[in-house]
């Protein structure tokens, strides 16, 4: 029973952590947006605006909770609940740290350790589209429906490339468990060093799965007013927006676990040696690893924001072309190249694909005739 309670506390901490990080992501997003646009961002509520998330939540709660007359009431309520549920479920299999040693027992800092961990994440991500679809359809609004349809087709399209880019990592590890994938990266052999192409594809697809800019077409306000959450108000809208930030944190965690060594950090063996092999030393070493993991994840959260405030949105046909005609073939190429490499025991082999692509691109750019560059044309007469 003892181990049950420790596990329960760990799960609660992970749950609270993802909510806390998501809450302060809303603050960080506005702060980052401000800094990138040469302004200070929110700074009125609390020191440096740190109470802003609470103020926002308070505002959300006190707004009118409106349900359109022609809407399907129960599905309308179920939409944001589903979005929140699927966002929170996927953090269950992410290994946040190594083991804790309590009373001579080794307890993993992780929700549950299953041998299909990464597939669990993938499965929950594929369910994530239901929240958007159900909410968008139940609103009984053309724009909501269009947003929902866009979200669904975008998620299905990018799931394929996401899964295919994952397969290369799974092939190198030989296991579907996220903890095994992290453990094989122990000692500096982070997967980013062996899977550069897979990483780029995975990251792009993660952006699309989280509905983040440049792939935030489901809520494209220029075309669809507010997309799938046009009719939502009050905390229901808050849940949709909040689910996006939870998703962002979870996918940052997955990226850092799969490609950036998870809770591994340079010289961790020496640190662990210096701290000693007794329970306290081991637990402190685990805590350092935990913070290393969180730091990596937070960097990717920042990266998500960085991209959002840099890039404009894609057009919908560009989005589909990128997914189906570029990312899927590239990820299949990555699988084949990685497979060839594994056959000859060359882990770095997928760099060959990158080098070939870069070479082709460079040659093609150099071959472009000079005459074609810079056609002088008058600017449109005003």
């Amino acid at each position, binding site marked *: 029973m003892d181990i049950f309670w420790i596990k329960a506390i760990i799960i609660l901490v992970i749950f609270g952590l993802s909510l806390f990080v998501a809450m302060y992501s809303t603050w960080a997003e506005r702060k980052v947006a401000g800094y990138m646009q040469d302004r200070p961002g929110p700074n009125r509520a609390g020191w440096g605006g740190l109470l802003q998330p609470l103020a926002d939540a308070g505002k959300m709660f006190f707004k009118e909770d409106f349900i359109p007359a022609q809407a399907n009431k129960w599905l309308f309520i179920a939409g944001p609940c589903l979005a929140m549920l699927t966002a929170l479920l996927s953090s269950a299999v992410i290994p946040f740290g190594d083991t804790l040693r309590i009373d001579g027992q080794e307890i993993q800092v992780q929700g549950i350790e299953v041998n299909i961990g990464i597939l669990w994440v993938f*499965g929950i991500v594929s369910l994530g589209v239901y929240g958007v679809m159900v909410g968008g359809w139940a609103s009984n609004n053309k724009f909501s429906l269009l947003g929902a349809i866009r979200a*669904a087709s975008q*998620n299905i399209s990018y799931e394929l490339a996401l899964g295919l880019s994952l397969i290369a990592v799974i092939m190198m590890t030989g296991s*579907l468990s996220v903890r095994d994938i992290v453990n094989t990266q122990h000692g500096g052999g982070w997967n980013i060093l062996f899977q550069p192409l897979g990483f780029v594809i995975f990251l792009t697809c993660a952006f699309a799965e989280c509905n983040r800019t440049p792939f935030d077409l489901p809520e494209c306000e220029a075309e669809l007013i507010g997309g799938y959450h046009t009719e939502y108000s009050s905390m229901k809208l808050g849940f949709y927006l909040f689910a996006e930030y939870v998703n962002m944190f979870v996918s940052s965690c997955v990226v850092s676990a799969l490609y950036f060594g998870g809770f591994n950090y340079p010289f961790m063996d020496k640190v662990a040696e210096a701290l000693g092999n007794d329970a306290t030393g081991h637990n402190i070493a685990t805590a350092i690893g935990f913070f290393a993991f969180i730091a990596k994840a937070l960097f990717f959260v920042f990266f998500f924001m960085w991209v959002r405030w840099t890039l404009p949105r894609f057009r919908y046909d560009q989005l589909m072309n990128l997914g189906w005609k570029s990312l899927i073939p590239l990820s299949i190429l990555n699988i084949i190249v990685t497979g060839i490499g594994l056959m000859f025991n060359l882990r770095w082999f997928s760099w060959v694909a990158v080098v070939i692509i870069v070479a082709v691109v460079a040659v093609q750019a150099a071959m472009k005739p000079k005459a074609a560059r810079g056609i002088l044309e008058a600017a449109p007469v005003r």
Partner: protein
Amino acid sequence: MSADKIWYLLTALTIVFALAVILVRNPMYSVLCLVLTFLCLSCHYILLNAQFLAVVNLIVYAGAIMVLFLFVVMFLNLREYKEETKSTLQRVAAFVVGIAILGAIVMAVRRLQYPMPSAEKFDIRTGYVEVLGETLFLDYLLPFELVTILFFVAMVGAVMLGKREKGERHF
């Protein structure tokens, strides 16, 4: 709560949702009930210690196929949906065919010889992805490859069907 109690609860839920799929009038609810049925089936797989099957069931059926179902249902204009009046002959025919199929299934199930599971031969690793992979790629390699060829042909066919023909309107 012991495992068999969970099993009874899950089975009851599965049957309720499965019945709801055919009894509910609104196709949207029907699709969502089907999704819930699949979720319950996945839980059954987990009870059988077959996590891989559970998650693949989730990804393929609940995550991909049912989303496409939902996609189609969303385009239906539900407000103008009217029950088509069926003739008495049609109803009688449907009833007879339904009863016949039910009878056939019941007969088939009664004739079936189950290999009874025994405690000695029980292997906890049967549902694991490693065991499944070995079975698939060692014992059933040829069928597996044939299935991949079938899928490949289907994919090429889909691409050919989806391709815009010459002179077709460009959106």
